[in-house]
């Protein structure tokens, strides 16, 4: 910046120093907040290697090496939580992207702008709700004695199902719930990308006699493939972080369902808040952070390789 032109009588150098001071002072409060609430907890990861006692504090508690991690893998619960996290997030990634892409392409083919807007608004609405409210809705559908779903099953002569005590159904229920909440918002990104598809390509295809399906398959999808790949890779980077709200609220934290609904984030929470085992909780939390970190680095590197523009950072 050209600060040499000075009309205030202060020399260019002095002025520059004043500018720097002003800018650093603007940066100070935000950076301090980040330091306190993001960096100090990073040093707290040493708790994972300690036998933490509230009355002794972090520094007073004794070291215990990798004991906390040993307990983690000896227990049955943690490996199950890891399995559920990876399995459910993989399903969410595949089904979620397919659903969002389909909705975006179909929406793009609707001619009436007003209709498109109405559909989009409706599809996005669930995104504004908290998981608590969504849990109420799922409950209204699945409640064993009064729920709508059992009502329908019974009206066609089938037996009702006690949904809240059968873990087998929950991968499907959670997938549907997750798609229901996110498909609208996710499709917005693809829809915007489709709006950017070169009109002349679509016209050329039309003149060549391409059917609607062929236009989608040969023109639209290929142009947004880089975006699809990028978003997929980003999601893979977060595969170890399950949505705590979804897995805690929708199955209502019922122990009967843990077999299929317990994920790493709910496990970490439960170990700390309900069991009160700080060692086990911090050890699993540390594993989650470290694996997440490595995955993000790898996937970001991969997306950079695939597409220079595609990488996020």
């Amino acid at each position: 910046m050209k600060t040499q032109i000075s009309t205030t009588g202060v020399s260019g150098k002095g002025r520059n120093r004043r500018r720097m001071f002003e800018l650093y002072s603007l940066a100070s409060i935000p950076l301090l907040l980040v330091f306190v609430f993001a960096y100090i907890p990073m040093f707290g990861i040493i708790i994972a290697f300690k036998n933490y006692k509230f009355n002794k504090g972090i520094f007073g508690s004794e070291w215990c090496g990798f004991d906390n991690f040993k307990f983690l893998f000896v227990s049955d619960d943690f490996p199950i939580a890891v399995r559920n996290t990876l399995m459910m997030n993989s399903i969410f990634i595949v089904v979620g992207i397919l659903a969002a892409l389909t909705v975006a392409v179909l929406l793009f083919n609707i001619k009436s702008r007003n209709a498109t807007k109405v559909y989009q608004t409706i599809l996005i609405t669930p995104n504004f709700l908290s998981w608590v409210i969504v849990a109420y809705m799922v409950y209204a559908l699945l409640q064993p004695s009064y729920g709508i779903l059992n009502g329908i099953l019974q009206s066609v002569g089938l037996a009702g199902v006690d949904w809240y005590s059968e873990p087998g159904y929950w991968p499907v229920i959670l997938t549907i719930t997750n798609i229901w909440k996110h498909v609208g918002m996710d499709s917005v990104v693809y829809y915007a990308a489709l709006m950017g598809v070169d009109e002349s390509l679509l016209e050329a295809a039309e003149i060549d006699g391409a059917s609607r399906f062929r236009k989608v398959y040969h023109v639209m999808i290929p142009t947004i493939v880089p975006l699809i790949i990028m978003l997929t890779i980003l999601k893979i980077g977060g595969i170890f972080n399950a949505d705590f709200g979804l897995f805690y609220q929708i199955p209502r934290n019922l122990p009967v369902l843990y077999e299929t609904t317990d994920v790493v984030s709910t496990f970490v929470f439960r170990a700390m808040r309900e069991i009160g085992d700080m060692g086990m909780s911090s050890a699993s939390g540390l594993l989650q952070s470290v694996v997440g970190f490595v995955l993000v680095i790898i996937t970001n590197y991969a997306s950079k390789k695939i597409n220079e523009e595609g990488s996020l950072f």
Partner: protein
Amino acid sequence: MKKKQKYIPQIILNILFIVLSSLIILPFLLVVAVSLSNERDILEYGYKLIPMNIDFAAYKYVFDNPTTILNAYKVTAIFSIVSMVLSVLFMAMIAFVLSKRDLKGKSQMSFFLYFTMLFNGGLVPTYILITQYLHLGDNIWVYILPGLISPWYVFMMRTFFTGIPYEITEAAVIDGSSEYRIFLTIILPLSKPVLATVALFTFLAKWNDWNTSMLYINNSKLFSLQYMLQRILKNIELLQMDTSNLNLLKALSEIPSETVRMAMAVVVAGPVLVVFPFFQKYFVKGLTVGSVKG
């Protein structure tokens, strides 16, 4: 003939989206329908999408006992608004600094923020810091302080600020205006779209917050709206399972619990659902802002 052929796919597509939209709306309608039903009908016939008899008893019960819900509304509104204002202000401050081309230490500051997106200390260290060292447990500031700076939005704002032509601020620089003045009187007014987007996202996230209460709040006067709702879903249930206690059972029988529960959900979710569709374009903008490069 040709025209007709073109219309048919449009009709099919529209029907498809009407079905899809109904699937999205149905759970909403179901909750509303149950809240308007007669408790006895529900106990006998279960939840129905169309109430057999319209009954406002549940709402009457909710509004006759308004203290808890009003208090939760107040607490949630306070911390949501304070969070939104402080968050946007502080994030704009750091984003403004990072948008300067010639500032020493800029890339270090960027990395300082960016790294927190890659790695975090996790739940236990954060919990211990907040409860044992900062003593923020059972304090309304616990809703506000920890999440004020989100690097993602900072980078989004910075991208926007960088796009403001230098010529606009140049005159102010020549006039000897301070950076504070430039930030407050030139940059902020020019950045309304991005500030509005970030403000809405922050507000919504806070409005829907339930886990902060669950982790850090024991005083029921400080519960957030969503957490209160979560407790109600569980609490009524707990009472119902406790068949040994006849007094409780008797007290419970006076509450139309099934319908009250859903009426509570309507009262909590309603305002947001009515207001937020009007701000939809900001949310869409926020998502499609595109390459938010660190």
